[in-house]
């Protein structure tokens, strides 16, 4: 099953989730009604008088309870869903996480960020912000968000202190698998919907507190039997926790199998089973295991790497398979014994175990240098003028990164000038890096004009940093430019709105300075201007959902025409267009190519916007059509490959780097 199938299936699974939820709500309504009816009967039998026919069945009371419960559950769920739709940060902060600064100097945090960055570059997603759960000594992690493009990763302090780099990489790979398999969005929806059921318990708890100072009078005659609120509160509290029980039921039905899948995807990703198995073993060897202390850990329990809750009867239906079973699926000869876990000294621990590397490169003999991996990079760069890829192969790699991509990413990062590796992870450095990258290489006039603009109109500190960084940026190879942008993006999360607006204006000006838009500039436009900044300023506009390409014919034409027209001669362009169109609409519709004048960049851009709302199976077709169009002339340049990746990213499909 590929990425697109996973995403589509996760979408459909929501249907089951809703069905279970409705059953749970019905169960709760009946139970609450039972409680209220019992209380009233009790009150009546003590001599109080309450309206309504006597006997257990009271239609008016039932309606009251039903409507009231539905309203409360509905409001609770809607509130939470709205809160979570803004992205994964809400979950991270609710669990007590703090953002890890990209410019951090703490070694365990740096290692964590490097691992996450490598994974993101390999998978073709933007580098996600990372949160650290400082107060958790257990080993655990989660990924939250609605799309791969707004995902957030959270890791506990226990994880970074007890796991070696390879083991941490296994955990992060597992989380990335959740992101790529479509689990994340489903999990977040689960959390939102179930919150409505929890609200009842919260109300019950609140009511219990109101009566805490009053004694329940049970002896005076003629009076109503004291304050019934705390009793009702207690009952609601208990009922609410029945809601939690239903919640566990639903969660485990939906998410348990996903854990095995994520484990196996992670192994595929890193091809180093010892990493993730090692992490699981360390959880077993730690006292606190993977249990989280945070008061609200319950809500996100289905999203963690390991079981986040302690064993109790409510957890008979655990959200995670047992540790030993998970380990055995990866290492069948595990003997079931957990050695006690001790913290890792990152300064002395080997960053790359030579045995690991040898395993991954498939060599029997010992490997001497940790830089052996860079051979992959060199092979990818040399003769990278032309890539030879079949269109289907590129699209099949979407959401399915492999070890070679991780190696490539790691070599790419190491190949950057030292200054750029470490020093540009703060907001100012990130801004300066992007400005420096946008300075025109080809035309000195334009470059001068851009520099003048920055000197006079940009923040003076940004200008000073840009000047300082320019010599280093000049050393960056062409295919590392967009990845470098991707690497510095997380730092932009720390800018204030004012600074973001100024940055946006500067970048827009710099791109337009030469009246042309290069591929790199287009990439920056989409990654930074169209996606990140609106999201940070809270101004995203979701694309309308498209279930049938026939309603967006002009967008399809515009997209393919723009691609085809870069083929060279008009005949080649027409042929390329035809092949692409054939992929989009199997037979049937005959599309005609647009002229170069019509299919300009703006058309292309708008077409992408429109098509980003399509369903996953359609996205797959669109990508295949684009790839077919690009490859129609028999060869694909590095630039064309990058363009395909930009398109893929705009459609929210993570495509790994295209290698030989």
């Amino acid at each position: 099953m590929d990425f697109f199938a996973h995403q589509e299936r996760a979408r459909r699974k929501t249907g089951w989730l809703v069905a279970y939820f409705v059953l749970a709500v019905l169960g709760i309504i009946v139970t609450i009604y039972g409680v209220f009816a019992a209380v009233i009967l009790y009150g009546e039998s003590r001599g109080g008088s309450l309206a309504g026919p006597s006997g257990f069945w009271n239609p008016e009371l039932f309606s009251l309870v039903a409507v009231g419960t539905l309203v409360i559950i509905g409001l609770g769920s809607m509130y939470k869903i709205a809160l979570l739709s803004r992205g994964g940060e809400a979950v991270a902060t609710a669990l007590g996480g703090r953002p890890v600064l990209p410019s951090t100097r703490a070694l365990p945090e740096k290692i964590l960020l490097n691992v996450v960055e490598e994974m993101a570059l390999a998978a073709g997603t933007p580098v996600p912000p990372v949160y650290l759960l400082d107060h958790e000594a257990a080993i655990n992690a989660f990924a939250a968000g609605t799309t791969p493009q707004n995902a957030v990763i959270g890791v506990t302090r226990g994880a970074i202190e007890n796991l070696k780099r390879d083991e941490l990489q296994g955990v992060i790979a597992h989380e990335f698998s959740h992101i790529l398999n479509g689990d994340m969005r489903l999990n977040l929806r689960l959390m939102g919907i179930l919150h409505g059921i929890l609200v009842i318990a919260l109300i019950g708890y609140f009511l219990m507190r109101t009566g805490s100072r009053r004694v329940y009078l049970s002896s005076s005659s003629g009076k109503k039997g004291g304050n019934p609120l705390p009793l009702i509160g207690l009952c609601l509290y208990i009922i609410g926790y029945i809601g939690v029980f239903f919640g566990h039921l639903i969660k485990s039905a939906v998410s348990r199998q996903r854990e095995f899948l994520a484990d196996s995807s992670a192994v595929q990703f890193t091809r180093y089973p010892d990493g993730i198995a090692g992490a699981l073993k360390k959880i077993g060897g730690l006292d606190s295991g993977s249990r989280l202390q945070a008061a609200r850990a319950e809500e996100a329990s289905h999203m963690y790497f390991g079981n986040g809750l302690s064993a109790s009867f409510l957890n008979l239906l655990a959200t995670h398979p047992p540790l030993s079973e998970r380990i055995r699926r990866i290492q069948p000869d595990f003997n079931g014994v957990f050695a006690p876990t001790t913290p890792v000294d990152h300064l002395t621990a080997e960053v790359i175990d030579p045995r690991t590397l040898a395993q991954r490169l498939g060599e029997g003999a010992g490997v001497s240098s940790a830089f052996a991996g860079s051979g992959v990079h060199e092979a990818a760069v040399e003769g990278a003028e032309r890539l030879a890829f079949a269109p289907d192969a590129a699209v099949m790699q979407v959401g399915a990164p492999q070890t070679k991509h991780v190696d490539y990413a790691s070599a790419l990062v190491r190949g950057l000038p030292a200054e750029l590796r470490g020093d540009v992870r703060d907001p100012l450095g990130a801004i300066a890096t992007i400005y420096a990258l946008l300075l025109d290489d080809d035309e000195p006039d334009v470059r001068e004009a851009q520099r003048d603009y920055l000197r006079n109109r940009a923040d003076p500190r940004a200008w000073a940093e840009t000047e300082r960084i320019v010599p280093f940026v000049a050393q960056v190879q062409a295919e590392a430019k967009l990845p470098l942008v991707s690497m510095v993006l997380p730092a932009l999360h720390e800018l204030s709105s004012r600074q973001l607006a100024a940055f946006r204006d500067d970048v827009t000006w710099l791109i337009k300075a030469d009246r042309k838009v290069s591929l790199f500039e287009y990439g920056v436009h989409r990654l930074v201007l169209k996606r990140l900044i609106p999201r940070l300023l809270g101004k995203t506009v979701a694309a309308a959902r498209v279930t049938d390409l026939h309603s967006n014919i002009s967008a399809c034409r515009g997209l393919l025409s723009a691609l085809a027209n870069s083929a060279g001669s008009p005949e080649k362009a027409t042929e390329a267009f035809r092949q692409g169109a054939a992929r989009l609409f199997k037979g049937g519709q005959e599309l005609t190519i647009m002229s170069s004048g019509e299919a300009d960049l703006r058309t292309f851009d708008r077409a992408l916007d429109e098509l980003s709302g399509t369903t996953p199976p359609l996205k797959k077709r669109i990508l295949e059509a684009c790839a077919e169009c690009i490859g129609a002339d028999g060869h694909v340049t590095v630039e064309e490959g990058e363009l395909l990746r930009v398109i893929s990213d705009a459609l929210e499909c993570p495509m790994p780097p295209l290698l030989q």
Partner: protein
Amino acid sequence: MQPLVAALSNSAITLIVIAVVAVLFVMYAIGVFNNLVALRNRFKNAFAQIDVQMRRRYDLIPNLVETAKGYMKHEKDTFEAVIKARNAAFSAGQTAAANPGDPRAMQTLSTAETALAASMTKFIGLTENYPELKANTNMLSLQEELTSTENKIAFARQAFNDAVTSYNTAREVFPGNIVAGFGGFGPAELFEVSAPEQREAVKVQF
């Protein structure tokens, strides 16, 4: 829903309406509260960014002083002043990091940073008079790192102050001011440093 609703008497409907209104009101209040929490977290995180860069600068300064000592043999007073100012700022920074935005901590930090900036200006100004020191590659690279770090601190301060202003505004306007009172959201202080923008060379008179 219809048959359910039809079965309700007036008093029941009133009860439901009151309950719904109450719940909506509570949720709204929670929303306002959460917003204040989010804004407060934002400026606390923004301070962490300043803190990282300040620590880098506090580490750089002793290196600069050591390098300069080899060339500027008779400026002991200046060196001591710089190190003293640096230490004061360092500890003020630690206090502020424990409680970002707290008025007293921020004021102490602002004062200490201003003093440090002044003594650094004097120090760098003095180095202008020692050409061999100026040409020393180590000194040049340290100075460049210092300038870059100062820029980063200033930029991060701007983001912090923006965040503090947003928070203060939210807690002063209605309905934030009510919730702020109950929830213990105190006012946050800006981080202002009156540093001289230009480093003027200090001429030593003989």
